[in-house]
């Protein structure tokens, strides 16, 4: 047990280091962009109006002060870390003075929900089909399924999403094609709202699953075709262990070990959002926030989003590393 504790401490140290480096990279890159949030704000505020040039000068001055962009680069950097350790990313520059964190928390549940569901479905289904296809190589239905799955995989996601939208939104309009829930429905844990959320998520989830299935499918299939020639599988077959059991407990169980790592990483990736899904299906979430923030030069928000994402991915990798010994008893913690 002691060695496990030592492992945890070491692993946690690594996690801190990785997050630190990652956030620094994000900081440097965001601050290297040529976009000036003040100019963006001025451009947006004056896009349709007529404002005298003198007034613009004044505006620029006061915005610079308001957004706290006055200090030296070093002061700003220190300020960033001071805020980060208190879990605050400061006010958004393009939605001043709303805190970045409240913008993120407002969008996050949607993205997280959508991606959690679709990633899980994709993972389970992909691994199941991949495992079966790898084990029962000669099965016709599985071959056809595999072909379909592989056929969808390379189609650019945007196209798949749009096709689904056209099919289910126009040709055969059975499902809502926009938004996270019905407009003007009271939010809360009531049946109506939940049903509406589920209904609205069907098409986005479907599109994500269709495109994502291939990756897991292929990975699992090749893993399985390696595992079937392992001694313990051969031996179980010779021992007359039923096929379904071999598939489940011997083949899949062993192949799952690496796949779970992949799952952890893609779950962490939830915090990147699904930008195109959000765009096509008008689904609320982090991705749209990110694109908007980038366009508006709102580096507070971009940094906030990026940081959350870095922490989330590192954390899920950390978690999976900690749980790995449970999953694969062979793994030694040292």
């Amino acid at each position, binding site marked *: 047990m*002691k*060695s496990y*504790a*030592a*492992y945890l401490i070491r692993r946690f140290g690594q996690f801190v280091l990785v997050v630190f480096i990652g956030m620094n990279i994000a900081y440097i890159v965001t601050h290297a962009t040529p976009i000036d949030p003040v100019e963006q704000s001025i451009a947006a505020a004056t896009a349709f109006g007529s404002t005298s040039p003198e007034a613009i000068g004044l505006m620029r001055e006061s915005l610079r002060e308001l957004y706290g962009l006055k200090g030296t680069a070093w002061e700003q950097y220190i300020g960033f870390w001071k805020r980060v350790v208190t879990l605050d990313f400061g006010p958004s520059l393009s939605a001043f003075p709303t805190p970045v964190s409240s913008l993120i928390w407002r969008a996050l549940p949607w993205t997280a929900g959508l991606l959690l569901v679709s990633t899980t479905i994709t993972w389970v289904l992909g691994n199941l089909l991949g495992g079966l296809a790898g084990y029962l190589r000669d099965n016709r239905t599985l071959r056809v399924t595999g072909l379909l799955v592989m056929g969808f995989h390379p189609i650019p996601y945007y196209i798949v999403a749009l096709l689904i939208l056209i099919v289910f939104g126009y040709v055969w309009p059975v499902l809502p094609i926009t938004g996270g829930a019905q407009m003007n429905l009271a939010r809360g844990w009531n049946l109506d709202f939940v049903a509406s959320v589920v209904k609205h998520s069907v098409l986005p989830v479907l599109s994500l699953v269709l495109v994502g299935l291939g990756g897991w499918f292929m990975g699992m299939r090749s893993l399985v075709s390696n595992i079937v020639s392992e001694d313990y599988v051969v031996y179980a077959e010779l021992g007359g262990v039923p096929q379904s059991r071999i598939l489940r407990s011997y083949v899949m169980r062993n192949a799952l070990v690496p796949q779970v790592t992949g799952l952890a990483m893609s779950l962490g990736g939830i915090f990147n959002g699904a930008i195109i899904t959000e765009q096509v299906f008008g689904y609320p979430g982090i991705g749209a926030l990110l694109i908007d923030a980038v366009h508006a030069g709102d580096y507070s928000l971009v940094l906030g989003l990026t940081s959350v994402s870095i922490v989330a991915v590192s954390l899920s990798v950390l978690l999976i590393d900690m749980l790995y010994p449970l999953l694969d008893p062979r793994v030694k*913690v*040292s």
Partner: protein
Amino acid sequence: MTSLLELRNVVRTYAKGGLFGRSARAVDDVSFSVGGSGPEILAIIGESGSGKTTLARMILGTVRASGGSIRFKDMDLADIKGRGQRMDFMRQVQPIFQNPFEAFNPLKRLDRYLFMTARHFAGARDDTAAEAASDAALRKVGLSLAEVKGRFPHEMSGGQLQRVAIARALIASPLLLVADEPVSMVDASLRTAIVNLFRKLRDEMGVSIIYITHDLATAYSISDRVVIMRRGVVVEAGDARATLDNPQHPYSIELKNAVLSPDTGP
């Protein structure tokens, strides 16, 4: 004349993990020497996990000793630095491993290792020279290049592989062979052949051999001296025949009694 190889109070510990660096001694205060009076075969005998392989690896320089010193031809192995010195050492000390199936890359042809060794350690400059050197070495172990060339390890049986492994080591004309259970995967007649081969190597080519084995019978038949290990510690050492004929330590006695003799029926 100084010994070819000299181990003094060699210790090797492995961390067992933990905050406070608990460690286990795989090899504990082992001293012996090889080749003090000309080429000899030294057998190291001991149960599984007694530290034989660890010892072999230390002698080969692939594992560092945690304590004590290992000197080869008056040079401390810890002082070997740089590829040049290392290559020079490897030319003189070659290993033979326990598991012939594992000794070669299953994805590569066997002859590759022979040719590489010939080029690096036997001064072969071109393919013909390398092939000649390889063939010569293979013939010493009862094979020929024609049988090996172009074949993959999985196309050979364990015995064949082990002989190829020995042939490969021989190409370098080493002074010392470290053979870690070289015959445990090999059939009796082949075992004899290999053991005879060792004897021949010692007698005719002046190669000293550290012969690690469970097999007391072959150890008895070819080795000059024997070291019996248990849990990292040398429990008994001395002249091979004398020691095995009349073991003193209880463990040595138990070991001897466990040896099956073809003469005792079921």
